[in-house]
Every structure is written in structure tokens, then in C-alpha cells.
């Protein structure tokens, strides 16, 4: 009995020790690690270097499809009733933008908080620095809704007191049906949907981008093909964009086929191409960049890269040399990097020097030092004292001996 007690005590101590040992480790992951939010080691107030929302990773918070389908916001007043908000439909839309953080802001790393945890319910309050609950909610919605629907009224979202909807016949669900977004949320909540107000996004037929690059100044993007023929979801391409990217009425002219926009500046080639490269990695630049001929667009390949595109290189497409997907970085300029095994069938006599018996077994690099084959070697380049064969080329200058 004593022994058992002792073992039990030891076990419990052991357990305690383990538990204590575990605490710092758990605290390290549960409490915030600076790097969870900041990408830079030295974030400043002006450039906080914020990473994408780590909420999902940290808390294991639900996926968008598990988001509450509808929420009732506010309460019934004398003139206007509460808003039944199609939360999940908005969450789906938000996938193309800032995600959950677009609305659940300033609190990225913790589980999603109720609005009233930060925003005071009463307008008479201590902290006037942030809006009260009613104002915060109105601003949240109106920030987007005013922009793409300036004619909207209070009744766009609120049920009017005394109306048929308010008496329980039908309740409009704000934003229940959105182009491309599932409306399952609305029906799942059991709230009948009456005349859903569509946040219709009129996608452009094609978009002509003005790029900042010197080569391929304009890119014509066939938007309708991608959404229609290839059935890509909006969020497949549109990430981290504001609502206005699609809901801006100035851009919503479906009839206009050409919309000139600047691509974001300061992007590297890879960043600028990453969206298209997922599908178009093997396509030619000219598929997107019209008039990609270097001469027509004034890109001096020779001066900019040190590799002039003369004669036989002139008609080549970029991809024939720049094979890495999406990137136009500096490639190995040596001929062999592209022309592998060409020497075997090269008729050297074309250059004016017939390789005789003495020369035909010499390695190319034995004479063509720079491997670019640009400068023609003359006898004196190898035969330093010009008294061949008294002194064979290469040996004096430390070159590899000529194979016999």
C-alpha cells in the first residue's frame, strides 16, 4: 500500500514536472510571437510590415464555409428593424479581398471578437477615439455599399417597421445573393429570402494593362474567357484586393471592352507574373505582351543585358532562351547553355579558318577563351612568339596541353 502511494506520488510529481515544463512551450505558441504578424524584424509604426492574417493557423478558426450563415445586427427601432446580414455570403466575397480581417479588423491574431467587445454600446462613453457600436457597424457596411450603390437607402438593409417584411412574411437578407457567391447561407438559417439585393459585379470583357516594364508595354487580358470559358472562380486570381476592385462603378462598364489600368508598381517580374504563370508558364511572352519584338518596343537587348540579339538571334522568341517560367532574369550567356553539342556538326571553314590536322582536335575553349566566340582569335592569340611549332600554344601560357 505504501509502495503504491509512493509510486502514485512520484507519478503525480512527474506529471506536475512535465506539466510545468510544458507551460513555457505552450505559452510560446499560444501567446503572440511577433513574427506571427510582422514579416520584418524591425517593424515601424509607419511600415508595420504586416503579414497575412495568421488567425487561421493560430486559432484553428473555422473555414469560410463554417462561418455563421446569417447574423442579426442591431435591434428593431421605431422606423427601421434590425438587419439580417448574410454573413457567409459576405465571407465568400471577402475571400477575394482582405478575408475575415476586412471586417474583423485590428485584432488579427486572436479568435474573432464580438464588435461590442471593443466598440461601446452607448454613445455616451469614455473613449471617444473609436466609433460606438452603431456607428462602427454602419461605417463597416457603408464603406463599400455607398461606393457601388450610392442610390441605396436605409431600407436596402433594414426592414421598415410596419412593412410586410417586418410582420414576418418575408425578411430581406442583406447581400444574400451575390454574383458568384453561394447563397446557401441564407436558406440554411431558415430566413426566407425576399428579393435579394444583388451586388452585381459586371466583369469586363477584356482589360488592357499598361505595364511599367520597357518590354511589352501593354498586356491584353481576356477576362471574360477566364471567368466564362475556363470557369475560374473570382478568388482564384483576385486576392488581397479592396471591394472597389470589382465594385467600383467606374470600372463596371461591361460594354466597354478596353479598360486601361496600371499594374501595381514596384513588383518584381515574378510577382507581376505569378497569377498568370500558374497556367501560362509555358506560353510565349507575346501571348500576353503584344508586339514583344525587342526592336519594335525599343528594348535594346544588347545594351541592357550585354547580349545583343543579332542576325540569328533576332527572330527568336524570349521563351526560347529564357526558359524559367515567369522569369526573365539573367541567363547564362555562354553559347553552350543553349547550343548543346553544336560543335560536332559545325563547319569551321565558314569562319574563314579551316581546322587542319593540327587544329581539329583542339578544344574549342583552347582558342576561344571567353566562350562567347565573339572575338576571333588570330594566330598570335595562341602562338605568342609566332615561331610555331617551336613553342606550342598553351604550354607557355599555362593552357591545357593540346591533345594528340
Amino acid at each position, binding site marked *: 500500500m505504501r509502495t503504491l502511494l509512493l509510486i502514485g506520488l512520484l507519478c503525480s510529481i512527474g506529471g506536475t514536472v512535465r506539466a510545468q515544463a510544458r507551460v513555457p512551450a505552450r505559452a510560446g505558441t499560444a501567446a503572440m510571437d511577433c513574427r506571427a504578424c510582422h514579416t520584418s524584424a524591425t517593424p515601424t509604426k509607419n511600415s508595420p510590415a504586416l503579414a497575412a492574417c495568421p488567425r487561421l493557423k493560430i486559432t484553428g478558426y473555422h473555414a469560410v464555409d463554417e462561418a455563421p450563415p446569417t447574423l442579426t445586427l442591431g435591434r428593431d427601432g421605431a*422606423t427601421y428593424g434590425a438587419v439580417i446580414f448574410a454573413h457567409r455570403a459576405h465571407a465568400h466575397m471577402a475571400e477575394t479581398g482582405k478575408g475575415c480581417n476586412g471586417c474583423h479588423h485590428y485584432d488579427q491574431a486572436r479568435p474573432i471578437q464580438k464588435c461590442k467587445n471593443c466598440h461601446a454600446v452607448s454613445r*455616451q462613453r469614455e473613449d471617444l477615439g473609436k466609433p460606438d457600436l452603431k456607428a462602427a457597424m454602419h*461605417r463597416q457596411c457603408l464603406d463599400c455599399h*455607398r*461606393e457601388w450603390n450610392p442610390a441605396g437607402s*436605409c*431600407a436596402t438593409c433594414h426592414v421598415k417597421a410596419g412593412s410586410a417584411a417586418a410582420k414576418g412574411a418575408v425578411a430581406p437578407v442583406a447581400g444574400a445573393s451575390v454574383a458568384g457567391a453561394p447563397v446557401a447561407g441564407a436558406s440554411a438559417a431558415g430566413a426566407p429570402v425576399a428579393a435579394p439585393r444583388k451586388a452585381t459585379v459586371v466583369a469586363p470583357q477584356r482589360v488592357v494593362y499598361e505595364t511599367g516594364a520597357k518590354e511589352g508595354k501593354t498586356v491584353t487580358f481576356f477576362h471574360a474567357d477566364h471567368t466564362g470559358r475556363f470557369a475560374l472562380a473570382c478568388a482564384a486570381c483576385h486576392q488581397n484586393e479592396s471591394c472597389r476592385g470589382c465594385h467600383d462603378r467606374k470600372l463596371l462598364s461591361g460594354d466597354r471592352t478596353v479598360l486601361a489600368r496600371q499594374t501595381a508598381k514596384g513588383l518584381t517580374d515574378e510577382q507581376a507574373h505569378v497569377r498568370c504563370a500558374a497556367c501560362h508558364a509555358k506560353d510565349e511572352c507575346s501571348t500576353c505582351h503584344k508586339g514583344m519584338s525587342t526592336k519594335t518596343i525599343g528594348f535594346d537587348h544588347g545594351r541592357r543585358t550585354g547580349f545583343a540579339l543579332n542576325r540569328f538571334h533576332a527572330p527568336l522568341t524570349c521563351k526560347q532562351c529564357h526558359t524559367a517560367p515567369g522569369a526573365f532574369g539573367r541567363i547564362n550567356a555562354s553559347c553552350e547553355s543553349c547550343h548543346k553539342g553544336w560543335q560536332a556538326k559545325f563547319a569551321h571553314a565558314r569562319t574563314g579558318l579551316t581546322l587542319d590536322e593540327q587544329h581539329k582536335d583542339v578544344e574549342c575553349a583552347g582558342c576561344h577563351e571567353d566562350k562567347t566566340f565573339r572575338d576571333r582569335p588570330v594566330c598570335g592569340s595562341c602562338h605568342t612568339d609566332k615561331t610555331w611549332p617551336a613553342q606550342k600554344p598553351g604550354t607557355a601560357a599555362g593552357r591545357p596541353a593540346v591533345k594528340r
Partner: protein
Amino acid sequence: MKSQNRRSFLKTSTAITVAATGLTPSTAHAGPTNILSPDRMGVLVDTTVCIGCRNCEWACKTAHGLETPPLDAYEDRTPLAKMRRPDETALTVVNQYENPKEPDLPITVKVQCMHCDHPACVSACIVGAIAKHANGEVVWDTDKCIGCRYCMVACPFQVPAFEYHKALGPRIMKCDFCSERRADGKLPACVESCPVEALTYGRREDLVRIAKERIKRSPDRYVEHIYGEAEVGGTSWCYLAGTDFDSLQFPKLGLNPAPGVSESIQHGIFAYFVPPVSLYALLGAVMWTSRHRHDEEEEQS
């Protein structure tokens, strides 16, 4: 006998003058109250937040017992197309201006009494019917008003209105900062009704600090100017805007209190009764010398 009388009159008048001079400090304070408490309240109007719903107009009329259509009638935005001023039927109005940044989203600006820290109307009122109170409000007293409407002329913002159509008991009508509601511990009606809290009610000091914080935090959103922080010596209602205040028809006023010049002249003339006393003294001296001359003339004749 006659000279004796004049002398006694002068003596009495001097005594009265001295007595009056002694009383001057207390009489100056007996005038219209203008107490600038550091805790005076104000409202910060953020025109970049205002959506032009005009709920404040409805709430104001309801709170002041003025005639108004029901709230949902205010969803009609056509009245915004016309430039309006506060009048005896509407103590506050919302006007609409073009937005150079966002053509689709016009700027809307609520107009009402600014509740100046040094109100020209208070200074101009000859019967002390208008007063600035410690809680920031500039209010009008129906029992004292004689209907001279000097306040209407004096106001640099042209806010006070008069019930011309009323033959009996016409009133000066202007925003009273919801004096009664605030005394009951409630918010001003407009502030309470604003759905987006474009109107923030609080201590004026706090509001100016908050306004500065907002400008600092979003320099692109605001012009670096808090209208009313310094205009005409400061106003209890202050404004933030995303575009130049001139283009929103805010009057370009100096930083000196509006009643400054007129008050300094008027008060200068009557300061401590020195000028009247000096005038009387001068007149007395003239009379004294002329009386002497008169006696001499009588003797000669």
C-alpha cells in the same frame, strides 16, 4: 444761492460717479454670461464620415417640437440639391457639395449654430437675452428678448433666424445645443440620431485632440485644418473635412473673436467711467471759469 446749488450738484454728481466707479467691476459681471469652462462641451463634425442621411434634421425638429415629415421621408435626397440655411423651421440643415476625390460620393455638411466661445450675438444683444453657458451652449432667453435682431446681424455664421410671420411672441430660432436634453443627461438629438457618428459629442478639449489624431492617422483623408479650433476665437462645434473648407462654403473668418473690435471700442469709452468723469470734470472747469468771468462782467457793468 444759485452757485451754491450748482456746487452742491457737482458734489453730488461726483459722489455718484465715484460710487458708480466703485461698483463698475460688479456691474460688468452682471452682464451676459460668457463663462469659458475647460470642461465645456462641443461636437466634432467629421464631414468625411457624414453620409447625408439627414437623420439629424429629423431628430432636431422632433426634439424641438418643429413640424417634420416622418423619418423615412428623409430617404429622399432631392432637398440636398438645393443650398439651404438654418431658419426658423429647421435649426440645422445638411448641404451637399461636389467631392473632387470621389465624384459619386458628394460631401455633405451639417450646418447649425457653432456655439462660439466668444459669441458675437451675446455681445450684440442689448438686453442680455443670449448667453454663453459653462457647458458650451449659446442660448436665447425668450423672457428678455425685445426682438431687435441685432444678434442676426452680428453672427459671423448668419445662424439666428426670426419668426417674422408671428405677430405675437416671435422668437429668435437657432440651435440651442439641446440645452434641455443635455440637462437631463441626454445627448444632443442630432448626435444621438447620427447612424455613422459623424457627430462626436464630448469635451471640446478632447474633441480637438481626437481631431488632431484623426488627421495625423489619415493625412490623405483630411485637410490639415480643424475649422472652429481657432476661428473667431474658437467654437464649440468643430469640423473636419477632406477638402478645402472654402469649397464647402465655410466663411473665411479671422482668428480674433468676432465681438473683439466693437467691444473694445464700446468698453474702452465707458471703462471704469473715466471718460464720462473726465468729460464732466472738463465741463465743470469750463463752467467754473465762465461763471467767474460772468461775475467780473457784472461788476464792470
